[in-house]
């Protein structure tokens, strides 16, 4: 002890702590009542130890009680995340199912409603095929003035075909729709605002066996028979069991001003 207390001795703080780890009081021999009290087995010691044990247990119990709270919070969050992920998956599945349903329904509307399909064929909204006749009309090759084919000729021809029972007509690949016009402009006949040139090949879908007969019997047929006879225009008809006509161009199918009247649908 005397050595340690020498003022010249430089010592590290931590070393000093280690050296004097035991309270100095234990080394002091006291006079008085407690001079000989080296007894461990006393109520005082027991009391201090009891307090020590109580402190430790208190802290341990407190820590243990706090843990479930944080644990519960954590598990709640985890289950919350899982529940929301599940809900999201459910909703995605529902959205996917509804999307599929919409696609199915629109496909079924397109494919399986015969009335709608018929209307589309009648208006020229879609290409059509079936039996029918092909009429090929060419101008006279004799150079006579009235031997060329005019828009009137074609209009009469198409009207005659409708009258004879044609269900879909196309001239040189241009389908005749509800708003299609056949007229003469800029030195050529145009249909659906597209110039067409002779020979004019008119495809008419309809009963191939009666179509020609009914055409020849109606005024349009008589007119064309006269044209052949008087102006030498060429006119040939070929029946066929497999003909097809394209759809009317989308531009000619656009409705901008007319709307359906309520209650008439």
């Amino acid at each position, binding site marked *: 002890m005397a050595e340690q207390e020498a003022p010249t001795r430089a010592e590290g703080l*931590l070393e000093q*702590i*280690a*050296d004097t*780890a*035991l*309270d100095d*009081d*234990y*080394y002091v021999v*006291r006079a008085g009542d*407690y001079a000989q*009290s*080296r*007894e*461990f*087995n*006393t*109520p*005082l*010691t*027991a*009391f*201090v*130890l*009891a*307090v*020590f*044990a*109580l*402190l*430790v*247990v*208190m*802290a*341990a*119990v*407190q820590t243990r009680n706090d843990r479930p709270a944080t644990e519960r919070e954590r598990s709640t969050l985890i289950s919350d995340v899982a529940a929301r992920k599940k809900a999201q998956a459910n909703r995605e599945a529902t959205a996917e199912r509804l999307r599929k349903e919409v696609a199915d329904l629109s496909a079924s509307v397109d494919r399986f409603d015969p009335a709608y399909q018929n209307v589309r064929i009648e208006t020229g909204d879609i290409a059509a095929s079936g039996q029918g006749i092909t009429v090929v009309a060419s101008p006279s090759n004799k150079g006579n003035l009235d031997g060329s084919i005019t828009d009137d000729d074609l209009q009469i021809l198409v009207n005659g075909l409708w009258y004879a029972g044609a269900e879909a007509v196309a001239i040189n690949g241009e389908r005749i729709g509800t708003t299609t016009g056949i007229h003469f402009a800029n030195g050529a006949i145009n249909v659906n605002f597209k110039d067409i040139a002779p020979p004019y090949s008119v495809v008419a879908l309809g009963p191939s066996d009666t179509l020609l007969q009914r055409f020849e019997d109606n005024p349009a047929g008589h007119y064309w028979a006269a044209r052949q006879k008087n102006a030498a225009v060429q006119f040939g008809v070929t029946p066929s069991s497999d003909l097809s006509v394209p759809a009317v161009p989308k531009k000619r199918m656009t409705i901008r001003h007319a709307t359906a009247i309520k209650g008439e649908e």
Partner: protein
Amino acid sequence: MIPVIGLAIGIVAGLVLKPTVPTDLQPYLPIAIVAALDAVIGALRALGERRFNDRVFVVSFISNVVIAAFMVYLGDQLGVGSQLSTGVVVVLGIRIFANAAAIRRRIFHA
């Protein structure tokens, strides 16, 4: 024998009564326990060296706990609570290890 009974009573009381530490004192409890542990280990060493004195034990126990808690409190007031706690734990830890080493030397002579 009596001290062992005291220890047992403390443990049982803690488990049965489940006293809760007031929220204000909670930060000081761990440091107080380290300080108390230092006093207990010191007492064990003194016991081995036949220097044990119950009065010194009581005084060192109480003063250790109070001073350690007070230092942490002071540190909290000064804004260096965690640093001061670390300092207290280091010093008490060194003392605990030194005393434990002395006990070990006495028992195992190594």
